[in-house]
């Protein structure tokens, strides 16, 4: 509980950012706590490898916090962080040009985890199949669907992250959903 009687969980991101600029550790910790999951899912969706995705998330937070002084607040902190995360992930992909192919070839960490027996008992096979099929969509469609559904971002925010207009993000989302439904109906798996 803070001096003003609010729990840190009740403090808006913008206020945490202002405190973070002054080096208030609890504010930075709360920002990490709130947004590392979203950043991780986005990074994983792009780089397809858990270890690389974790590196990307770490680097994205470091870059974001170093640049907090220049953050103008035009976008939400989360959108800004996710944009940095996407850029970091693309950088990681460039450095490791074969990362995705390797992950797909050897059914790497992502899928190995998704098929973990313990997890299978918690996540239905249909859910796992939907996620696997989602990974087969083109980048912008895949990201539009996952950012809209998983993270609840608006199409404007999705567009900012994938480098498209709001309209293009909307079109990518609905094309992705339509294609995913077709794949699910066709009984195609991966």
């Amino acid at each position: 509980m803070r001096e003003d009687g609010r729990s840190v969980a009740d403090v808006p991101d913008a206020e945490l950012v202002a405190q973070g600029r002054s080096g208030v550790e609890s504010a930075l910790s709360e920002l990490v706590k709130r947004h590392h999951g979203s950043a991780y899912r986005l990074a994983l969706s792009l780089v397809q490898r858990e270890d690389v995705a974790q590196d990307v998330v770490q680097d994205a937070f470091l870059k974001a916090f170093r640049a907090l002084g220049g953050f103008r607040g035009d976008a939400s902190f989360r959108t800004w962080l996710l944009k940095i995360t996407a850029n970091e992930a693309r950088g990681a992909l460039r450095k490791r040009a074969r990362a995705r192919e390797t992950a797909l070839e050897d059914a790497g960490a992502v899928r190995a985890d998704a098929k973990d027996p313990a997890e299978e008992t918690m996540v239905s096979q249909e859910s796992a199949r939907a996620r696997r099929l989602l990974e087969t969509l083109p980048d912008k469609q895949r990201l539009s669907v996952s950012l809209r559904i998983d993270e609840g971002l608006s199409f404007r925010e999705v567009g900012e992250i994938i480098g498209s207009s709001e309209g293009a993000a909307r079109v990518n989302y609905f094309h992705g959903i339509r294609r995913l439904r077709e794949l699910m109906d066709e009984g195609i798996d991966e």
Partner: protein
Amino acid sequence: MSDRTCGALREQVPDLAAGRLAAEEASSLSRHVALCEACREELALARLLLDGRAEAPAGLERRVLEAVRRDRPGVGRPWWALSAAAVAALALGIGIVSEPAGEVEVPGYAYEVEEGTFWSSEDGLIAGAPTFEDLSDEALAQLLAELTAGGPGGAV
């Protein structure tokens, strides 16, 4: 329900699936979904995707926080160290600018900074004061103790 209306409502289906809508909005959209096959299928797909959503590894949050602390040495310094530093800088600054009749003894630990970085008119709280960010935690703690006890730094 026209297609146009359906289109606008469909955009909210992911929020309904994730429980992100207010009760009234959720209720309104649920009534539409009950009558609209396309939205119903989309809701089912959104729920499947959410159920299979990846979660961040358990240790990632801690790993990021540790990296942030390493990257920002000021972060994590105890509040009392910063308070002591502010008091120390103020006390030394006042001591210098007030030019007391007697000689002011500046404690040695205040000079635990690299040569050439001691005086800084830009960074100090008072022009001419040593920058407290350059003082070690130990020096700050010692200074605080002496200030509290009326030692050299507290005799201003």
